[in-house]
């Protein structure tokens, strides 16, 4: 059911099970989790997104503002294997490029799924 063009918001359960399916099919997979929010960020703490090494992703960590940047970072984390914390928000330089339109701030943990 999870084709590349599926736009529906999957429940967190489906996101993790999709991650496992990808991993079992031999792909590299990373999981991004919102671990802190300030102000009017659109997705609460615990929201997740799974990314495979071909750039396909399911789930969300914002209203769509930072997903692109998170996917790019996730591909890096897959190479290094080390978890990384990303900060997005008005105080962050990156925010000028991929800012949150809502004015909120989020911290996102990106980790790779290891064998």
């Amino acid at each position, binding site marked *: 059911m999870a084709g590349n063009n599926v736009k529906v918001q999957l429940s967190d359960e489906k996101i993790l099970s999709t991650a*496992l399916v990808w991993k079992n099919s031999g792909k590299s997979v990373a999981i991004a989790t919102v671990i802190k929010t300030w102000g009017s960020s659109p997705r609460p703490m615990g929201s997740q997104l799974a990314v495979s090494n071909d750039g396909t992703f399911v789930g969300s960590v914002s209203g769509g503002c930072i997903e692109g940047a998170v996917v790019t970072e996730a591909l890096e984390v897959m190479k290094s294997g080390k978890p990384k914390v990303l900060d997005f928000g008005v105080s962050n330089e990156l925010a000028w490029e991929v800012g949150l339109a809502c004015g909120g701030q989020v911290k996102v943990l990106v980790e790779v799924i290891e064998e």
Partner: protein
Amino acid sequence: MKKNILSKILDDQEAKTPFVLLTNIQSGEQTVIYHKGAVGPEAKNLELLKICRRYMKDNKNGIISDPKNEFFLHVFNPPLRLAIIGAVHIAQPLTQMAKIAGYDVIVVDPRESFATVDRFPSTTIITEWPDDAMEQIDIDRRTAIVTLTHDPKLDDPALSVAIKSNAFYVGALGSKKTHALRVDRMKTEGNDERQINRIHAPVGLNLHAVSPAEIAISIMAEITATLHAL
């Protein structure tokens, strides 16, 4: 995240077992914490386990730290549940909306012509009298209960159980007049007045709703407001 941890937590979710996934933000190491027991590097850190279990109870996530490490504490509680007494017309859109909002829905109605799979596809249906049915539902703090039958024979026994339970929301369909009569009956039956006052009636936020779907919106809105006001 190790693949075996991912498999494990997916199994736990499937089994509706509540747990906390504790991630060390620096090292990436993870511990899975249950009501009883824990697996992983922090499994013996009793202070940390205590905090995790409190977050589990409050159903909230967050970052916590000890002198050496910073952790993300991610609570995975089983879905919220909505028990609907009365497989009436309003129950149909209410079931659909509650599912979209992430609830597991249980429809209770002993009238088998109402409580059919055709009317409530992929829904748990219990065709027993509400007092028996309520015993089968393990009502917890993540359960909402709504009575919709208009029939005291069905609504009252369900409400008597509901107001004594841990359910976070109890609502009953019916006008102010209907509800006043209901309150009188329930008092006569010896129910505690404070507990009776837990019933949201007339059910739902006042949206001037008319159609079954609109009434379902008002009920779902009130349940949502109650959930997050806790």
